[in-house]
């Protein structure tokens, strides 16, 4: 079973925000996109996706809107809010700082 805790704390949020930064998507499209861009490395179950989306929505990072999907069915589309965009920039910067520091350390140990 894949649980969100398999991801580094908070990374699922970052991933979702990043995906939504390009264009508004519904939950299904997000899950497809997640699978597509991360391959098998990061597995996010359908079950944990929706609570995560709702959390982001309640926090005000993303907003939701009902629109017609490609196959003409009403679906809930999420898009990044202004606050969310700022949050994403901050978090992305944090992430690169953190990950480069960590890979630096990891490389040091190898040497």
């Amino acid at each position, binding site marked *: 079973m894949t649980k969100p805790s398999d991801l580094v704390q908070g990374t699922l949020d970052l991933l979702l925000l990043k995906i939504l930064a390009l264009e508004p998507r519904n939950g299904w499209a997000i899950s497809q996109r997640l699978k597509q861009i991360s391959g098998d490395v990061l597995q996010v179950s359908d079950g*944990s996706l929706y609570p995560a989306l709702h959390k982001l929505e*309640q926090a005000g990072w993303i907003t939701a809107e009902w629109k017609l999907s490609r196959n003409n069915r009403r679906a809930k589309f999420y898009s990044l809010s202004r*606050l969310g965009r700022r949050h994403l920039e901050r978090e992305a910067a944090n992430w690169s700082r953190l990950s480069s520091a960590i890979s630096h350390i990891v490389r040091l140990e190898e040497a």
Partner: protein
Amino acid sequence: MRPQHWLYTIPLRLRSLVRRRHVEWELNEELQFHLEQKIAEGIANGLSPKEARYAAMRAMDGLEVRKEEMRDMRRVRWLTDFLDDARYATRSLSRTSGLTAFVVITLALGIGMTSGTFSMVDALIFRPYPVPHAGGVLTLASTTHDSNLEDFSYREYLDIRDKTNSYDGVIANADMEAVGFSAEPLATPRVRGGMMVSGNYFHVLGVEPRLGRGFREDEDQVPGRDAVVVLGPDFWKHEFASDPGVLGKHIRLNGTEFIVIGVAPETFSGMLIFGHPDFYMPLAMARVFSTNLQKNFFEDRDDRELSVSARLKPGTTLQQARNELVVVAKDFEREYPKVNRSRGAAVYTQFEARTREDLNWKFGVIFVILALAVLLVASTNVAGLLLSRARARTREIAIRLAIGAGRFRLIRLLLTESLMLASLGGLAGIAIGYGIVEWFQSFQNVVFMTDLPLSVPFRMDTRVLLASLALSALSALLCGLAPALESTRLDLVNALKSADVDVPGRKRLWGRNVLVVAQVSASLMLLTASFLMVRGFQNTLREGTSFAKDHLLMASFDPRLVQYNRAQTQQFYKLLAERVREAPGVESEALTQNIPLGIDDFDGIAFVPEGLEMPRDRENFNSTMDTVDEGYFETMGIPILEGRGFRASDTADAPRVAVVNEQFAKHYWPGGDAVGKHIRLESRTGTLVEILGVAETIKYQGIFQKPIDFLYMPLAQNPVARMTLMLRSSGDPLELVQSVREVVRGLDPNLPMLHTMAYQDYYMNQAVNGPRIALKLVGSMGLVGLLLAIAGLYGLVAYNVSRRTREIGIRIALGAASSDVLRLVMGKGLALVGMGTVIGLAMGFLLEQLMNSMLFNAGGVDIAAYVIVVPSLFLVTMLAAYIPARRATRIAPTQALRYE
């Protein structure tokens, strides 16, 4: 979170709350969409529809759990849960509407009585002064051996004002006094309440006049120069119909012309608890208003007539202010040893000052204690009811627990129920509280028979309302928590097997037993207290006042209202006494500065008894005094026990004389030879006064008063401006009014007669009816407490016994005689009541001690109360145990076993 964030989140939370159903629909719809897509994908990948559906569901990791997770994300869970609970509680309460109504009424009585009585304590102690930043206003008081809240003299006030650094202004005011007011120069003056204040009074208090201006500091510096007056808001409204043109108008106060310079705002009703001054005058005009003819207000350091207050500077502590004032008082003592020996000074907060100046608050506190006892009995009743209700719901609760409800969640549900009950009870209680306050207000005219602007200050204001709500919440906890805890602590297996079962063990019964004990003890305490008050009051009335109250007419005069000087005043009273004595129907005549049991305080007097060694740290002793004429003792029927009373020969030129009461005589001359002894006024070197006689001790200030030292001075030797004429009549005293009026008109047609009435009526209103109101209140609390306790006790005991029907059936089936069974259950009930009685007696005894020390001595432990109350409680318990037990023993064992 940051405020800009709230712009996003608040609408979301609101939406989750208000459009709950829609949000729920969206949740399902969203997941449904996902599942459909997933299934379509599965089918496209070659799965059968069933398999695809199964795979889609499995990928969700438990659909319902995820839904719950998503709902939790809304962060309004606590509230929606509460709303659910509330809806559930409403349903279950309305199903048992009779019980609900009973519970609500019971709680309403308890809460209403408490909030009604708390409004008294609030008005007498807690309500802040009606000024901005009221907490910073402190009371400065002079202290002596006998009192820690005395006034300062004008000179002392000036020194304190100039020598202290802890304050943003030090202010002074005299008492509210009767002042003769006339809007036109020729009109007969009417009595209104005026208060002299220092020039910085309004400024320091932060009171902005509604109209015009407050006093300027220089307006109270030159005695007699600035005749200016600021009107109180109510007076302006009633006397001048809120006319803004009143500014600059000339009015006459005690015959002197004053210019109206301002009107105090509506919000400022004055700094007193009961009084609302009609107008304010600067201290510099004291000559027009001062009551004391013997002293010079502006010069004499011992003419102490001013209450001093001050506003604490921000950053200065109370302790610093206290230390500073102590130093000032020490300086006074050193510089003016004659008038300031062993005199200190103290700084009080509002709470400290209020609990020292007015004794009525003690009544208030006792009432609140009693009302809380009623509330306790009421809550216990309700707890008992809820407990038995919860027992009937055992199975429901067991099922809830079995299918996974958390214990805390269930306790919350049950507490929500009792909270709803308590809220309803609280609302109804507040209505009752309003009723009680209204009831208090309706006695306004009964209690204050005076021309001064006094009013009953009790109100249901925000603080009282908040306190009532807090009480409701508290009682919800009190009566809800025990049942909730108990009914959720279940043995599931047993509870599910039988709808209603008593798990063996003492723990279960413990709760109900505690309720019985609490009920008995609280109600007993309540009854003891009300019995004590009623009996104490009756004793006091039976004791009487030691003087005759019937066939007396009273009428007061204040020649200052028509600008008499000292000699004219003297002459007026002399002629008045002579002429009314001749009037038909008048048996005897008296003049007195204060009437016994009146609303005004008697003057105090400082003296040194001749030939008595003074304690080292004392300059003099103090006593209360009255100034009377030679007819007083005879007219009032106060016996002279030794020596003689005053005679016409005790004139201003004769040697100074005085009459003391028995208490005074015994206090200073225990040998019983007071007559012929001397005292010196003020100090060892003061005026020599001979004691002529000893009068019987009477009630002076109130009928609950304990005997006090008292001294009489003859009017001729101690002139006073304001006097009351007392006439003893052969027939109806009111028939004399006309002839007195004629005599006064003959002396001066402009002089008003004040407070003209039969003394008996005045006495009844002033001294008897006031306490009677208090008694009614206590009596009704006692009665309500008793009724609630009887109902509750009966219910609890009967319920406890009926729970044992099955057990009784078994006992009878095994061969127990019904008398054994009766003995068993009744013994249990009686043991509980016995325990409650012991606790209740102990609490009642403590309360009695408290009341005796605070109010009056009704004579130790009140046996009669216990002899009536205790057996009746036992009787109720026995009945409550007997009836269900009897029924249980009568029905066939087979039926009893199937019972429930």
